[in-house]
């Protein structure tokens, strides 16, 4: 048995632990060595977003939250990462149905957009905050989507690496050029020997490509890619899930894309505890957005 990793605290509950997928590269999942790392072409973009929110005050027991979100794309040329897109938004979040007319008027007088946090009808500080967080997260995802759309529109030949899955980009023109990098593995799409092969793949190899279908029929193709050896760590160490919108040549292109991503192991984003799965350019997007937002670092 390999040495394990020490954790502090209990893991958060997983909302959606399992989903179904079908293998589209061969009959069973196998580990595929992708070959030596290979730098992606110049001009490739990297997209990410940040969010922050806090309770600004209360009307009685009703919380008024203030959210700040930003999304951006860095483009790489000659090794240097330069800002290509930056969007940000500041807004208020309240459970609108629990406010009276006077309170609503006061909030709209602040001059910021106001979003409704639909929560429980009874006050519950924890659940109220959870509802606010959901709104902020959805707004951030929407802003990221806008940033990606702007980039893909502006640079029709260029690939874009996106932090997270691509479900949100399915209706964005040019999303076929997007490469999603999922660092969290809350949802398991495989089972049995397929899952074991995928989660124990050695460094520098990927799993076979598998497909999952969204509610609207959009098909997303995924494969696991091991960036760093997991032995002496836990199963998820260095493991990413790469996602593409299904299309011609995606499966055939999986090795090449994987080699690009392997090359992104260096530099290491060592200031982030997720360094084993976090690509440095994505980390840089986050750093740049936080620095520009001020007081976020």
């Amino acid at each position, binding site marked *: 048995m390999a040495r394990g990793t020490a954790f502090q605290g209990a893991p958060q509950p997983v909302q959606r632990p399992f989903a179904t997928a079908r293998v589209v590269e061969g009959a069973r999942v196998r580990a595929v060595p992708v070959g030596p*790392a290979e*730098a*992606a072409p110049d001009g490739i973009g990297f997209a990410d977003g940040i969010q922050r929110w806090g309770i600004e005050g209360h009307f009685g027991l009703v919380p008024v939250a203030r959210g700040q979100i930003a999304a951006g794309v860095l483009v*790489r040329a000659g*090794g*240097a*990462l330069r800002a290509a897109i930056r969007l940000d938004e500041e807004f208020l979040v309240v459970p609108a149905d629990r406010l009276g007319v006077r309170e609503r008027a006061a909030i709209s007088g602040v001059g910021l957009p106001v979003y409704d946090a639909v929560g429980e009808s009874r006050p519950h500080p924890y659940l109220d905050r959870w509802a606010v967080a959901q709104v902020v997260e959805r707004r951030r995802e929407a802003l990221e989507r806008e940033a990606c759309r702007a980039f893909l529109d502006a640079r029709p030949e260029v690939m874009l690496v996106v932090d997270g899955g691509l479900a949100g980009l399915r209706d964005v023109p040019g999303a076929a050029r997007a490469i999603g990098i999922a660092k969290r593995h809350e949802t398991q799409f495989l089972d049995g020997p397929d899952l074991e092969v995928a989660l124990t793949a050695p460094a520098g190899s990927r799993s076979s490509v598998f497909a999952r279908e969204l509610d609207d029929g959009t098909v997303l193709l995924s494969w696991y890619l091991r960036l760093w050896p997991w032995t002496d760590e836990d199963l998820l160490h260095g493991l990413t899930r790469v996602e593409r919108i299904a299309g011609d040549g995606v499966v055939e292109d999986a090795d090449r894309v994987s080699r690009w991503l392997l*090359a*992104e*192991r*260096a*530099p*290491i984003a*060592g*200031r982030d505890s997720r*360094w084993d799965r976090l690509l*440095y*350019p994505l980390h*840089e997007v986050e*750093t740049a957005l936080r620095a520009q937002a001020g007081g976020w670092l």
Partner: protein
Amino acid sequence: MTAAPQDPIGRVVATEALPASPHQFHFWTAVEAPVGIGAIVRVDGATRTVYAVVTDGRAYSDLLTPLHEVVASEGNPAAPLPPSRRAEIRLWTAAVLRQDPPEPMQPVPLAAVHLADAADVEVALRMDAFARGDERTAIPIGLYAAGGTRAPVFVDADFLLGPESAHLGISGVSGLATKTSAVLFFLSAIFQHFPKRKGSVAAVCLNVKGPDLAFLDLPSDLPPEDAAMYAELDIRPEPFSQVRYFAPFKPDGVNLNTLRTHPDLVHAVEPLVWGLREVLDYAEVLLNRDDIDAKADAFLDFLADRVVGRPFQDEWGNHHLVESFAGLEGLFRAIFDGLEQAGGREMWRTHHVATIRKVRNRLMNVSTRCKGLVTDEASGNDLPFGAFADRTVYVVDVAGLDQLGQDLVFTRVVSKLREHLERRDLGVDNVVVFVDELNKYAPADGPETYVRKMLLDISERGRYLGLVLFGAQQFRSQVHRRVVGNAGTTVYGRMDGDELATPGYQTLSPATKSKLATLPKGELMVRHPHFTQPVFLRFPRPAALAGRQGIERYPPAADVPFADAIVRQLSVLDRRVAPQRVKDLIVGRREDDVRRALLATRRARPADVLAFFTARLGRAVVRDAPADAGPAVTPLRTVEDPYAPA
């Protein structure tokens, strides 16, 4: 990325750990920004403008630990470079040169940083106070050249030549620091820009080694970039138009002891020859620390006041007229003989015989060790004290003399300059004395010498007299701190690392020290009373021929036989002199007689040189018997001579 001149190149940043203060601040720039150590920058705040010079720089990335780089490269230094470069910062530290308005003095605003343009440089270095208007006292000393800006840098004549402050010290390692070149360039600048209303100025340069200063009147081959720098500094690139060279003779008394003996140039070299009086006035120089006592001083004073140059009768009835070393030796012999005949007395006119012997040995020693500089004549050929000319360089070549001779020349020349300046009858109002290897003459430690005392006096009082010391040395730390401290303007060339580690450089940042240790030829760091921080600048090569090139172009003539040397010397005075006629005249004559006649001719500079020389030579006396050696001196029986040369 290249910033346009008006664009900011950075912004001031301040943290609790690195705050901005009234004297120092930090700013970041793009990696490619044309900023470096020594660059002058301007910070435009809302209510104040700050000028500063960059003193330090740092670069770092977001790398948390070097181990991450090792891991990322999988331990292989030869691994391909990562596709992304780490985010990197250039963080600079700048020392404030000036704030406008100066009051209230406040921390530097957290504002945009610009590279200084020429107008900013003038304001930053406070040159606007003396480089403009009718009362302009600016002397250009080099070009500030950083960040795409080139601007002349001036020093204030009132602070370079007095009376506010004075003196200049230049330090740097030999060969790379271009100390002599810098001083020659500064002298050119002074001669061309020292305001006429401030009076006249001359320079006395003591050439202590090689041919460094032997060709100051000849033009050098200036590269175009140097010529352009002269134009930018408004200095004519030309050699010194008025130069007078002085050099002692070699021990043969006729060949000049200098490297400027090429036939085309030697005519401009005048012999530096001193008689007994000139030496006796500075006999203290000849005495080492052990010799300095009241008794020796008293006896020297007695000789100077009561004996030399006036009739003197001793107790034994001998009449003396001591005007030369030979005459002085006669007096000493008479004293010793007299004392011996008086039964071995040990005192003569309150002076102990040992003191007399000590002084005799020192004085006679100089006539031996400095033969060529010291003549047996009553007087010699000297610098034109009292008739110094404006904007003229007087080069005294003592490179061929031993340390004793160099000390003597240095002391006497500087002392005479001081005497005449005190009396305001030197001929000029200000004199710059350039001395290389100042650490030899005014060392930080070691015995107290007459030379060092004199230098300390000049350092502290010279600015009131117009006597200005330009001293060069390899190691500033080895020069007496009062001499160093009194230099209003200090210049540094390439410096030795060990020297930079000494306490005198504690105020410099590590980066500034590093720059000093690698400074290329032609670049200097300057401190001046108007500059609140040291400033780096460039200066052009001197327009006068450098010593090494001069030697290649005008190789020194070989020493010639006595007769030919006499012919050469007389020919300098009058080209019509027929060599054979001179040789016929001096054949069979005593060399001392010939030298004496030559010296007299040179002093008189008569219209008919040959006739004057012939007259002074006198008629030949045919010897028909060996010369009388005079009465033998019986050795003293009772007194040993502890001061006799080993």
